[in-house]
């Protein structure tokens, strides 16, 4: 399952569109257990990604991944910036050696966890990334699996990020970063990236 530049660009385009469409919903989710800006943060970040990719016209995957990372890191403005940014940066770094999607995503999720220190069950985007990367490795990733992973954050009590200040009050709400990560993987399937 090789990630090509061409497929990657389609993926990012669809992801940016999905984030733009779901901006208000993501911010609403964040206002329940956070500061209500996740949709705006992500939309600002993905707009920067799209613009930067369009302007710089990368001719190889590594450059495209690095451009994505830099745009997210510098434009998102919230926790999701360094988190998604680190994930894409780790993919960029590894992409010089391999373009295998599984391996890139394994590196991405390791970066994510290093950056944020979240474990499985802490009610963060990690609760989507971890199971999805595992399913992908087992060649079993479907939209249902993605939905499943996103929904799994609802009954969790947050241990990381702003929601963690709410303690048990964070239970019963979807984690906004998990939802946006769900979109990332949905659009990855749509773009038939690994095919």
């Amino acid at each position, binding site marked *: 399952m090789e990630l090509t530049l061409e497929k990657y660009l389609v993926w990012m385009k669809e992801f940016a569109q999905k984030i733009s469409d779901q901006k208000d919903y993501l911010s609403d989710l964040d206002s329940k257990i956070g500061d209500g800006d996740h949709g705006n943060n992500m939309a600002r970040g993905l707009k920067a990604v799209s613009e930067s990719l369009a302007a710089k016209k990368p001719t190889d995957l590594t450059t495209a991944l690095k451009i994505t990372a830099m745009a997210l890191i510098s434009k998102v*403005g919230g*926790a999701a910036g360094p988190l998604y940014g680190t994930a894409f940066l780790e993919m960029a770094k590894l992409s010089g050696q391999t373009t295998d999607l599984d391996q890139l995503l394994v590196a991405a999720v390791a970066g994510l966890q290093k950056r944020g220190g979240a474990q499985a069950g802490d009610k963060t985007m990690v609760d989507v990334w971890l199971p999805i990367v595992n399913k992908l490795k087992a060649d079993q990733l479907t939209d249902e699996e993605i939905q499943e992973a996103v929904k799994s954050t609802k009954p969790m009590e947050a241990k*990381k990020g702003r929601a963690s200040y709410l303690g048990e009050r964070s239970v019963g709400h979807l984690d906004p970063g998990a939802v946006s990560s769900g979109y990332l993987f949905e659009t990855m399937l749509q773009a038939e990236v690994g095919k």
Partner: protein
Amino acid sequence: MSYGILIVSHVPEIAAGVPKLLKQVAGDVSITAAGGTDDQEIGTSLEKITQAIEDNQADELLAFYDLGSAKMNLEMAEEMSSKKIHLYDTALVESSYVAASLLQAGVDLPAIEKQLAPLKVKGDN
């Protein structure tokens, strides 16, 4: 080896205000700050943090932040910088004030860190 202080906040006004409090007791310590996103909204900016690190006249910095996402950006900035950065999970205003007072008085880093230790209030989330 000179030590400086770096303040990172989600809010531009907090980043502007904390150095004023510290400067009163630490006129000789280089204190720089980054607050808010590039658009002056609530959040943090890697670019602003990087700039604040560069603008600081010291070559080793004691860094303080308000909330966890500021810490993540601080760590990214640290990885990209050649300056040594000591990052503390301590009360932003109170601990940076203590550090500034002690740096001004010429106290060494281990002794400062001993006084900062009980001011730890975050880092687990």
